[in-house]
C-alpha cells in the first residue's frame, strides 16, 4: 500500500468501527440485528485469516468451532452465568482445535481442505446422532439477554479478531507463519518451529469463532443443532476472505462487507440464487482473480489495469489464495 492508500484505508476503518460502535444510539432493532450479522462475519472471517491466510492451510471446517461454542452455551443454559458460558464456548473450541491439530495439520494441500470439511461434518452428525439418541432434537431458549447486550459482545469479538489478526500479522510469529506458507520445508530448515506455529495459529483462530457461536446462540430462541453446524457458514467465511484477498487488513473487511451486502439483498427472497452466487464467487475468484478485490484495487492504482490484476500473482504480495498453490501437494516423484 502507498502512504496515501494507507491513510485512506485507516480513515475508512476507523469510520467503520466508530459507526458500528455508535449505531445502537440511533438504530432500530431491525437495523441493529442486521449490523450484528455484519459484526459476526467480520469476527469469523478475520479469525479464519489468522490461521488459513497466514499459513496457506485452507480450513473448510471453521463452522465446527462456531457450532461447538453455540452448543456449549445451549447445553449450559440457565445453569451457568452467560458470560462464563460464552467464554467456555471459546475455550472448548480452542481445546478441540488443539486436540485435533496434531494429526490434522500433518495433512496438506487439497487433502487438508477436504479433511477439515470432513471433521466438521463428523462432529455435526455425531452430535445430531447423540441428540437423537437422547431424544432432544431441538431446544427452546427462554430469557435470552437484550439485543443491545448481544450487539456489544459481538462488537467486542469483532474488534478482538481485528486486533488479533493485525498483531499476528506484524509479529515474528506471523512472519514465521508466512514463511511456512511459502515453503514449509525451507522454513523448517531455517529454524522456524513449523509444527508448533501451525498448531498455535490453529488454536488462536478457533477461540473467537467459538465465542461468536456462543453469542449467536442467544439470538435464536429456538435452537437446532444442524443449523449451528451448517457447512455453508464455513463456505461463506472462505468466500469472504477470497473475495477480499490481499495480505493486509483490507482484504477480510472489504470481502466481508461486500458479500454481506449481497447476502442481505438476496438471502431472504432468493436463497438458492444467493447460493449459486456464493459458488460462483468461490470458483470465479480462484480461477480468475486469486488476489481478490484488494489485488484488483492495487493493480488499478499501480496503473496496470484490472485485467493484469486478474492474471498477476506477484510473489511479494502473495495473498491467501495465490499462496495456497505453494502449500505443497504431493507429486508422484
Amino acid at each position: 500500500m502507498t502512504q496515501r492508500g494507507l491513510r485512506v484505508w485507516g480513515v475508512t476503518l476507523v469510520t467503520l468501527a466508530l459507526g458500528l460502535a455508535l449505531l445502537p444510539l440511533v438504530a432500530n432493532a431491525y437495523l441493529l440485528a442486521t449490523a450484528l450479522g455484519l459484526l459476526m462475519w467480520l469476527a469469523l472471517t478475520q479469525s479464519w485469516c489468522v490461521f488459513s491466510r497466514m499459513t496457506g492451510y485452507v480450513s473448510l471446517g471453521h463452522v465446527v468451532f462456531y457450532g461447538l461454542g453455540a452448543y456449549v452455551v445451549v447445553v449450559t443454559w440457565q445453569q451457568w452465568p452467560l458470560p462464563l458460558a460464552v467464554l467456555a464456548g471459546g475455550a472448548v473450541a480452542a481445546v478441540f482445535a488443539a486436540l485435533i491439530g496434531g494429526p490434522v495439520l500433518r495433512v496438506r494441500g487439497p487433502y487438508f481442505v477436504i479433511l477439515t470439511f470432513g471433521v466438521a461434518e463428523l462432529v455435526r452428525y455425531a452430535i445430531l446422532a447423540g441428540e437423537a439418541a437422547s431424544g432432544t432434537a431441538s431446544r427452546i431458549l427462554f430469557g435470552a439477554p437484550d439485543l443491545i447486550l448481544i450487539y456489544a459482545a459481538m462488537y467486542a469479538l469483532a474488534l478482538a479478531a481485528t486486533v488479533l489478526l493485525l498483531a499476528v500479522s506484524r509479529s515474528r510469529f506471523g512472519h514465521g507463519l508466512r514463511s511456512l506458507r511459502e515453503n514449509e520445508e525451507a522454513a523448517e530448515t531455517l529454524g522456524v518451529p513449523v509444527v508448533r506455529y501451525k498448531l498455535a495459529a490453529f488454536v488462536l483462530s478457533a477461540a473467537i469463532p467459538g465465542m461468536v457461536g456462543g453469542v449467536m446462540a442467544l439470538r435464536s430462541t429456538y435452537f437446532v443443532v444442524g443449523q449451528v453446524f451448517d457447512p455453508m457458514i464455513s463456505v461463506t467465511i472462505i468466500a469472504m476472505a477470497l473475495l477480499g484477498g490481499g495480505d493486509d487488513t483490507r482484504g477480510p473487511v472489504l470481502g466481508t462487507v461486500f458479500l454481506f451486502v449481497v447476502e442481505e439483498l438476496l438471502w431472504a427472497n432468493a436463497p438458492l440464487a444467493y447460493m449459486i452466487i456464493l459458488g460462483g464467487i468461490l470458483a470465479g475468484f480462484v480461477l480468475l482473480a486469486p488476489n481478490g478485490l484488494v489485488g484488483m484495487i492495487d493493480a488499478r492504482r499501480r496503473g496496470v489495469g484490472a485485467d493484469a490484476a486478474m492474471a498477476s500473482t506477484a510473489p511479494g504480495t502473495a495473498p491467501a489464495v495465490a499462496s495456497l498453490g505453494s502449500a505443497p501437494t504431493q507429486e508422484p516423484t
Partner: protein
Amino acid sequence: MAVVDTMLSGQLLFAALVTGSIYALVALGLNLVYGTLRMLNVAHGDVVMLGAYAGYWAFSALGISPLVAAPVIALAGALAGWLVYRIAVRRMLAQGTAAHRLEGNSLLLFFGLSIIVQNATALAFTPNNRGYTYLEHVLHLGNVSMTTNRLVALAIAGGACVVMAVFLGRSLAGLTMRAVIERREAAFIVGVDVERVQALAFAVGFGSAALAGVLLSMLEQFSPFSGFPYTIAAFIVIILGGLGNVAAGLGAALLLGVLETYGVALTSANVRSVLLYGVFVAALLLFPRGLFAGRAARA
C-alpha cells in the same frame, strides 16, 4: 442371539453388496479423473445426482424404463464429461502458471461448482426428495428375500466395474490411461497423447457416475443435495484402494458397504453419516500424504 442372527443373515450381506457395488462404480470413475488430472473433483457426486434426475424424468415423464434409459444417460454423461474437459478444464490447464497454483486450489474451485450445480438443480426441480417405484417384485433365494430392482442394480453396477477393469487391464487405451495415472511425464515422453487420455478419462468418469445415478434413482429417494455423500464415499474408496487399482478399489468399496450397512443395522439410521465421515477422516489421517501413500511406500 438376535444380534448374531442379524449379522449372519444373507439379507444384510446382500444390502451391503448393493451399496458397495454402487460405491465402487462411482469411485472408479473418480479414480480415473483424479488419477489422470490430479484434481480432486468434489463435484463428482453431483454427476451421480444429475444421472438420478435423468433416470427419474425418463421414467416418470416419458415412461421409459430406467434399464432402457441407463445406457443412453451414461452416454450423455460421457459426452458431457468430454465437453467439460474440452471446453473448461483444458483451457484452465493451458494457463501455464495457473496450473501449478490451481492444484492446491482446485478443491475450492470444484466445491464452488458443486454448490452451483446443487442449487441450480434445486432451483429448476425444487429441493424436494424424489423417487419412483420400479421392479418392486420380491424374489426369494434361500432365506434371503430381495427386490428385483436391487438385484438388477447390483448386476449392472458389478458388470460395469468388470467392464472397466477389463478395459484398464487389457485394452491399449486402458493401459495407456494407467500409464498416465502412474507416471504422467514418462507417458508423455514415450509418445502418449496425454490430452486425449485425459479427455477419455473425463468421459468414462462422468459416464459411469451418470450410470450409477440411474441405478440410485431405482433404489432410493434422492434430492439435489444427495450427490455429496457419494463424493465422500468415492474418496474413501480411492484413499484405501489406491490410484488406478481396480481390484483394491472394489475391495475397499465392498468393505465400506459392509461397514455402513452393518453399522446402521446394529445401531440406527442416524449413525450412517457419522460412519461415513468417521471412516473418511480416519482414512485421511492414516494416509496423511493422501492418495500417494501406498505408492510412495512401494517405491
